[in-house]
């Protein structure tokens, strides 16, 4: 294989990782702050994709891009207010069962509303075509997708690092009792975090609807690699998750590139195993007392 093709595969793999990132960041945030392993996260991604189908005939893809993630985020707030909040202080296995059930309910609901066969949706005309970066020819849509994803990640980082909102959330991750002792109620923060995390999953659904098959179980396809990313990255670490997502994409892409495509899925689990052997908290996992 030529060095050129290898370079292409590395770049493509990194790009591929960015899609996982949109799912994994929300998953990590909700788990870090609320201790809830949201198995329904993939379902929100699927809902985002299906909403794109519903909204775009009326408002176009641009309209779906704005409206669908907001609607999904509102779903997130409702779920947080009515269900998640009851489980912050209970045995985590209960919240696990809750979100597992929620994922099944959502998938079956999509099946009942839209039918089991996959539905068709294409890249909007203005976003089709190729761009050439030197001799590297790449899908224009994916470059746009990359731009949006990077903007989201940076926006989230600024929100968490540079605002008072972010400071409370980060403090809540480390020591919720101390935050309460200081007279700050974490409840509204949890709602916003759920809205952000779940809204991001919805956004991923919108962005990937034009290039992936849209079917009721599409959430299951993305949730497992997203979990792998969270575990590799380490809890509580923003950049750990970012790095892990890129690594997972890279490993998958390069395995295909060098002719070991059959092992490309297995390779990310092997990567997870190796990372955990040497760094049991994940790459940049912080020491969070209540999770030790």
């Amino acid at each position, binding site marked *: 294989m030529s060095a050129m093709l290898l370079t292409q595969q590395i770049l493509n793999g990194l790009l*591929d990782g960015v899609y996982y990132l949109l799912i994994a960041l929300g998953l990590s945030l909700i788990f870090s702050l609320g201790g809830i392993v949201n198995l329904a996260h993939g379902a929100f991604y699927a809902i985002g994709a299906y909403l794109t189908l519903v909204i775009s005939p009326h408002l176009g893809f641009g309209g779906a891009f704005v409206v669908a993630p907001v609607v999904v985020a509102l779903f997130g707030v409702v779920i947080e207010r009515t269900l998640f909040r009851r489980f912050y202080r209970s045995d985590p296995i209960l919240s*696990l069962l809750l979100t597992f059930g929620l994922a099944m309910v959502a998938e079956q609901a999509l099946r009942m509303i839209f039918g089991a066969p*996959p539905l068709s*949706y294409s890249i909007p005309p203005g976003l089709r075509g190729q761009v050439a970066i030197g001799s590297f020819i790449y899908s224009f849509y994916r470059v746009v997708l990359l731009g949006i994803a990077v903007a989201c990640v940076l926006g989230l980082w600024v929100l968490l690092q540079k605002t008072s909102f972010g400071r409370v959330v980060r403090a809540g991750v480390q020591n919720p009792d101390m935050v309460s002792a200081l007279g700050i109620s974490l409840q509204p923060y949890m709602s916003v975090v759920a809205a952000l995390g779940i809204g991001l999953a919805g956004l991923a659904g919108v962005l990937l609807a034009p290039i*992936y*098959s849209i079917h009721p179980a599409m959430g299951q396809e993305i949730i497992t690699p997203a979990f792998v990313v969270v575990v590799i990255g380490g809890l509580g670490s923003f950049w750990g998750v970012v790095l892990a997502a890129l690594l997972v994409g890279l490993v998958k892409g390069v395995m295909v*590139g060098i002719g070991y495509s059959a092992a490309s899925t297995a390779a990310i689990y092997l990567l997870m195993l190796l990372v955990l052997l040497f760094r049991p908290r*994940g790459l940049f996992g912080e020491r969070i007392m*209540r999770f030790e």
Partner: protein
Amino acid sequence: MSNTNQFTRRSLLKTAGGLALASGLSAPSILSAQTSDVIRIGHLTPRTGFLGPLGEYGVMAIDLAVEEINAAGGMMGRKVELLKEDSINPQTASTKAERMIERDKVACIIGEISSASCLTIAQVATRNKTLFINTGGNSDALRGKDCQRYMFHVESQNSMYVKTVGRSFLRDGLVKGKKWYSLTADYAFGHDLLNVSKRFMQANGGNFAGDDLVPTDATDFSAYLLKIREAKPDLVVINLAGNQITNFLKQYAEFGLTFPVGGFGFDTALAWAAGKGNFVGTWPVVWHHLLDTPGSKAFVAAFTKKYNKPPENQAWGDYIATKIVAQSINELKSAESPKIIEHFEKGAKFDLLKTRPGYFRASDHQLMHEMYAVTALPADKIKNQWDIFSSSPAVPGPDEPLEVIASTAEENVCKFPS
């Protein structure tokens, strides 16, 4: 949130592992009382996972078939009761088949799409001397080294798919001296299909520029598409299955690749999901909804009336298998599997909604019938979301025996275990 929260990293890992296990679980079926005035038929097919969307067409079709059979007086005057389950994976399929036969006393089992699950169901069926009709598993091995006395195949074997569409490729000069790039689903069906397609290429003087195995859970094909662009093949050959095909087609269009595309395995629902402009290439099917025969037209009309969309090829498989069973039981006045099998092996002819009737070949239990190669229409010729391809005439042609597209006894040796 306080110290009562006992969630540790260790439990997170356990969760990730548990996910894989839990996804194999499903709700138990409801036990119904035994009565002798009904005939039970078991239906097993994947309804979730990457083959789930196709399984759903099978379910819709068998519901329609049983409804029609019951309206026409049932089987031997007895009402047909259908037991339907999601087969999920080979292990679960085998457990459910066992339960249907031993506890529910089904007359036969119909269905399946995964070749791997077909094999485990066939083993249970043969052990219990109960007929199993495979409506969607393609691998040649099921008709060859893994063939079973109690398993019959309405679905065509991979060899028939390859030889059907292979005629189109030969006609278009895409075989001799040409190089192909193939993507193959990494499980029993794909491996088998790759073997058959390599045999076809060797026999016809072509070669492979590359072939990649694709994990069944892969959704992103960009890495493969970059390799294909670099390899500049004369034909991209798709041996994928289920949602993989839709994902591939959408992304092939996205990356603007223009090499001719063809596939050896295909389902119309996947082309419909890829949509206008994304669906390209020439593909083989056992049946399609545009067939101009009275039987097909009636089936398409009844199905469309009930479900508001036309049936696809998987629907035909489950529908026709059920009709074959009903016709045989009524003619024989017996629902005993050994008698039905004897009837099939004697070469009984069945109307398959095509131009010629078909029959099961006694040597490997494969249904001998006509197939078709469909070619994607250019975007400006497409009138609606369903009629997005044109069809070849029936393969084999009217003057040829039906067996010419099937594997020969030497290519695929079947010795029924006695």
